[in-house]
């Protein structure tokens, strides 16, 4: 079976935080302890919704050393493919679900002398676990957290209450914005910057830091892409000797899984590289959406990341 090992869990707590975000707590179904993890890790939550199985990654936000329960916060996306709506509307306390072992693609670099966290909206969640980890290690950190408005500022009160000196909050509707250039200028040597939030914010932080002469290795970011819907297309899987149809609302990876093909994956969000697949033949155009492949790979027509990327055209033959 592909992906990280699975853990059967029970939903033990559901707490709506505001109009968009709800927190879920999971405990092991067998009553045992969950594995510890490192701040920034995510788990892939399996959602069985009738005939459809969705698997979405969510950052773990609980204390990485707390093995009794994991918590995640899910932002409702009314335009999405339905994963977050399923979590918000169908999941109840006491439900049995399956999650994956934690996987970390956004870990702290513990060689850093200081950690500078930049969060946008629901992008706050990995930092909540990282802050707990750093507090235990007596690490030096600072958080700059931008939210659309006061009512959508998940965990703002908890952060400003526990860490008043480290936490800086910005509300878009009050005209507050992170003064990024000024913030980066003058950070002590050995500072690493971490950003999690909307794509525009990630691009802005990466570019500004690079322009200010920050080393690439000191700039960390995480953006999970949800697979976007698109036109249906047909794929021939050469190794499995199958021809499959990818529906409008499902990803190529999900279509392979639905057809009984055990394709590799880990993050399901275009970031980790596990699902990289060789293209044997094609006539048409790729719609590459991942962060993994280099631009040259995208242009070559020889590789695709089936978790988020799609295809439009006559034929596509994959080495799977």
């Amino acid at each position: 079976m592909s992906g990280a090992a699975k853990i059967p869990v029970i939903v033990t707590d559901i707490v709506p935080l505001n109009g968009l975000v709800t927190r879920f707590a999971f405990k092991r179904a067998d009553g045992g302890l969950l594995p510890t993890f490192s701040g920034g890790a995510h788990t892939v939550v399996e959602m069985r919704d009738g005939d459809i199985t969705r698997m979405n990654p969510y950052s773990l936000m609980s204390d990485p050393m707390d093995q009794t329960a994991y918590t995640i916060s899910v932002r409702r996306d009314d335009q999405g493919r339905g994963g977050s709506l399923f979590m918000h509307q169908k999941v109840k306390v006491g439900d049995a679900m399956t999650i994956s072992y934690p996987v970390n693609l956004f870990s702290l670099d513990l060689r850093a002398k200081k950690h500078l966290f930049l969060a946008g909206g629901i992008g706050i969640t990995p930092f909540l676990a990282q802050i707990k980890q750093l507090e235990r290690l007596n690490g030096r950190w600072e958080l700059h957290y931008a939210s659309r408005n006061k009512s959508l500022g998940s965990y703002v009160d908890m952060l400003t209450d526990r860490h008043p000196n480290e936490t800086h909050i910005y509300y878009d509707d009050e005209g507050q914005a992170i003064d990024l250039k000024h913030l980066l200028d003058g950070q002590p040597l050995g500072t690493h910057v971490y950003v999690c939030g909307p794509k525009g914010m990630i691009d802005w932080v990466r570019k500004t830091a690079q322009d200010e002469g920050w080393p690439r290795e000191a700039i960390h970011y995480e953006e999970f892409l949800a697979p976007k819907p698109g036109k249906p297309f047909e794929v021939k899987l050469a190794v499995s000797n199958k021809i499959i149809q990818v529906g409008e609302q499902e990803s190529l990876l999900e279509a392979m899984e639905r057809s009984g093909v055990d394709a590799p994956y880990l993050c399901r969000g275009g970031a980790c590289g596990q699902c990289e697949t060789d293209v044997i033949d094609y006539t048409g155009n790729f719609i590459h959406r991942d962060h993994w492949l280099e631009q040259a790979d995208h242009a070559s027509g020889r590789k695709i990341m089936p978790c988020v990327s799609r295809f439009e055209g006559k034929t596509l033959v994959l080495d799977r």
Partner: protein
Amino acid sequence: MSRFDFPPAIKSRPVWGRLETRTGSAHLFIADADGAEAIIGIATPEIMEKAHIIYIPRGAGFAADLQALKPKQFYEGPSYAAASSRIAKTLSDAKMGLQVYLTGTEGLMGQALHAAMEAGIPHTAIQTEHRGSVARRMQCVHCKGITEDVEVDPFQCAHCGLNLFVRDHYSRRIAAYQGVCIDAEDPGNVPAPKGIYE
């Protein structure tokens, strides 16, 4: 030109680069001897306005040429050891955006690379360019003593006196290559020393 093409070696051996100017809030150059030529090769007035050059001439006559570049700060010292407290202070006061350029002998670059890494700069973000002598800074794996400027292989440890074989096995932490006793099995059977790259 004071450049040397090092022959292919094991992965442990450091690979030095070529300096290029990068945008940054400040620029720290640490060089010895012929390394000055690499600085002169890339210096621009804009870079020098924000530059601090720490130079150990070791008999080379480039100090006046470097000063003529009009760096914001210039220091000339007799040895790396003499300059090391200045290097440590400069790095501890530095801010993100600092660009570090190391050039000259492997011993100088290795030690300055270690200091910059300790200060929190990822080693891949530190620029280097080898110039001048190809002598090595060697650590005796037996007594742990450091012998500087080793030009021949084998050589005698300056601390314990063992005859040491010059390996390509390098320690980034110690900033030295490893020297291993060459005649342990048959004491006194030591090949005639020759140049490391001969």
